[in-house]
């Protein structure tokens, strides 16, 4: 019977869901139909496949061709179905042996000349194939990323003509090569002793950070140096972060090499740009910063509705988009680093410049960020313009590598103790802090005086726990708490 099945997949969220491409070639009025909730890009495959097969010297059957994408109720997106459809038709018409595609998943877009192009989300397709125990067939460009998936056999197919000679097997590389990239170094930052300390705390504990200061004081300079003092991504993180980039059609190679994502969307970024969205849904900046740093410069200039979408992911580490066609979940565990001016003119509190902003305007400017978001800022630090003497003088801070060694040691201590403090809450957090009676009373009193919310109490304790980790101490002392309270923002006291 002239039928054949080839495995493929379609992307939903950051996952590729397995799809079977079934081709049925029967005699009758010649035609080519695709059924199974395919979107326009998939339906256009008909024309591409027809031309590509002919260009590659194969024959497009002069018969009734029906392609079914199963499971039928699942919506299918994208041009990655071109190759599996072509393979299914070739197998059904016996132009290639059935064994060639058995046990394989295929993904690739066809050009009219028969060459195969890579599509976004290769890594997701590779993971789906590995999960189903399949090999992956695809173009060479795309398979570079797929090699990061352990135990997956890849078959390279750059032009359809190669089907006559069989696939060229790719060498299997279990781990993607590490390193090979440089981050901006803290050596370039003169002065800013307080801000450097806070940056180190943020790196050590994965805490959110807000820098407030006049324009040109070095906020962006400092923020860009955070990835350089963070440890490289570990194997699981590499795959998770690269997956989001792959699905979004961005280069995943640096992430697979261990580089932390650093995303700095412009402040005109929309809600969908930050949280993800569109049809089909694409991950937003928050998800692209998964396991890395999301840097929002000029925080108060972002649209309030976009900013408020940050709130849930900052607590949960993921976000779920619910749309008419279904719900998708994107990972979004990031360290938020934000920067803003103290007032619209930017010079409030600058010793040499006068601020012309009216009091009400300053208050309104600061409320743009909103209490709930401010409440989620673990560390708030003022960054001031530094003296030109200091800027050009000999005083030089530590380099990123020195700071990173300390951050690594802190994280190691935290892991031995029971995990990074940013992941702790409730009883587990209190347990980890081991406050003495006196320290506990002092903190309760402070919390009452400053009207801390429950969340504020948790976040201060987390920062205090990280500070104790930095000192390699098992118990959080009053000094740690005092420093943590000092890093709390002043708007939300």
């Amino acid at each position: 019977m002239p039928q054949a099945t080839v495995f493929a997949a379609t992307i939903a969220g950051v996952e590729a869901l397995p799809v079977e491409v079934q081709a049925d070639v029967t005699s009758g009025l010649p035609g080519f139909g695709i059924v199974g909730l395919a979107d326009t890009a998939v339906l256009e495959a008909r024309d591409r496949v027809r031309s590509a097969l002919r260009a590659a010297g194969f024959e497009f059957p002069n018969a009734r061709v029906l392609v079914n994408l199963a499971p039928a109720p699942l919506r299918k997106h994208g041009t990655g179905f071109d190759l599996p459809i072509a393979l299914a038709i070739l197998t059904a018409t016996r132009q290639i042996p059935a064994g060639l595609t058995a046990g394989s998943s295929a993904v690739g877009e066809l050009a009219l000349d028969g060459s195969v192009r890579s599509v976004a989300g290769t890594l997701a397709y590779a993971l789906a194939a590995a999960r189903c125990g399949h090999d992956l067939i695809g173009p060479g460009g795309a398979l570079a990323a797929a090699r990061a998936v352990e135990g997956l056999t890849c078959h390279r197919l750059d032009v359809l003509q190669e089907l006559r000679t069989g696939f060229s097997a790719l060498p299997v590389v279990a781990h993607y090569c590490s390193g090979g990239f440089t981050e901006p170094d803290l050596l370039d930052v003169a002065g800013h002793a307080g801000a450097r300390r806070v940056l180190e705390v943020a790196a050590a504990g994965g805490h959110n950070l807000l820098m407030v200061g006049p324009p040109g004081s070095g906020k962006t300079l400092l923020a860009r140096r955070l990835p350089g003092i963070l440890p490289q991504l570990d194997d699981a993180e590499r795959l998770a972060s690269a997956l989001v980039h792959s699905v979004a059609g961005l280069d995943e190679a640096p992430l697979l090499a261990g580089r932390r994502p650093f995303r700095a969307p412009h402040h005109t970024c929309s809600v969908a740009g930050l949280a993800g969205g569109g049809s089909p849904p694409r991950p937003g900046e928050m998800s692209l910063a998964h396991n890395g740093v999301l840097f929002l410069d000029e925080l108060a200039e972002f649209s309030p509705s976009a900013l408020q979408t940050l709130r849930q992911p900052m607590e949960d580490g993921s976000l779920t988009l619910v749309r008419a066609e279904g719900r998708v979940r994107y990972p979004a565990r990031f360290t938020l680093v934000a920067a803003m001016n103290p007032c619209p003119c930017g010079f409030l509190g600058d010793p040499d410049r006068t601020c012309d902003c009216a009091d009400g305007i300053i208050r309104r400017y600061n409320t743009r960020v909103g209490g709930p978001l401010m409440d989620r800022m673990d560390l708030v630090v003022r960054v001031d313009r530094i003296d030109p003497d200091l800027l050009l003088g000999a005083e030089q801070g530590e380099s990123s590598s020195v700071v990173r060694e300390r951050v690594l040691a802190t994280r190691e201590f935290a892991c031995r103790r029971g995990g990074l403090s940013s992941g702790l809450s409730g009883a587990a957090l209190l347990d980890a802090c081991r406050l003495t009676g006196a320290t506990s009373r002092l903190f309760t009193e402070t919390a009452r005086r400053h009207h801390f919310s429950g969340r504020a109490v948790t976040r201060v304790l987390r920062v205090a726990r990280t500070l104790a980790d930095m000192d390699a101490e098992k118990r959080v002392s009053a000094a740690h708490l005092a420093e943590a309270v000092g890093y709390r923002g002043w708007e939300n006291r």
Partner: protein
Amino acid sequence: MKSPARHAIALGDAAYPACLRDLSEPPRVLYVIGSPELLVPGLGVIGARKATPYGLTTARRFAGWAAAAGVTIISGAAVGCDMAGQLAARSSGGSTIAVLGCGADVDYPSGSADLLQDLRSNCAVISELPWGSPPSRWTFVRRNRIIAALSAALLVVEAGLPSGTFSTADFALDLGRDVLAVPGAITHPESRGANRLIRQGATPITDVSELGDALRLAGLDVEFAQEAAQLTLPSGAIERALLAEAQRPDDLARALDCDVVTIARRLGELEMGGNVVRYRDGRYGFVAAR
């Protein structure tokens, strides 16, 4: 609740406050909500809207003390020093009058609405503008002359440069009222105005006994009032440095040749204890007893 009494007092009326007649252009009609008998010469307490904790503390300290001593506090109910002084006067059980640059029944600025409601019921809110007049830029400068005229003495607690408080001080000098000013650190931009007033001849006020003397000189009856708590001098190097001048942690670390972690922890402790406050601009300053 009964709404507070409204009065419109014309220039010729017996109830018209005599001190306002000193003005070259006294208000033809004074619109009052509250008790018109409170409109006697008192102590004007004014200062910057963008106040630092230092300005707010001194406003509270002096206005609270003077009000407890039976002196009426006159001010403009603006956000910042004005409001801090008037709230302190109320909480120490004294009386205080708000002079507005809009109709006396208008809640402006909106941040002072609660204070104004309280004053209408228990003290007095006055204006020379008819009921319901909206605020505008020039009405506030005109309003300042009424504050100056009602004040036997005018205390400027904190003023930067340039500052609206200067127009009130100028009116007060023209009327022959005593001008008092609280000095601030010479390094603070927020204190330049008050320090300049002192250079121009205003009486510096550094504690409540000096304020008492100044008020008596201005012809006000000052009843015995409890001295405010004596300031206990702090001992540590950080505290002493902060007492001299509000500073940023980084500058403090450099000045004391100390690492930022020690500074951050000590500042945090002092802040938790309520001895030190963080200014809006990131500096830390010492707080005297309230």
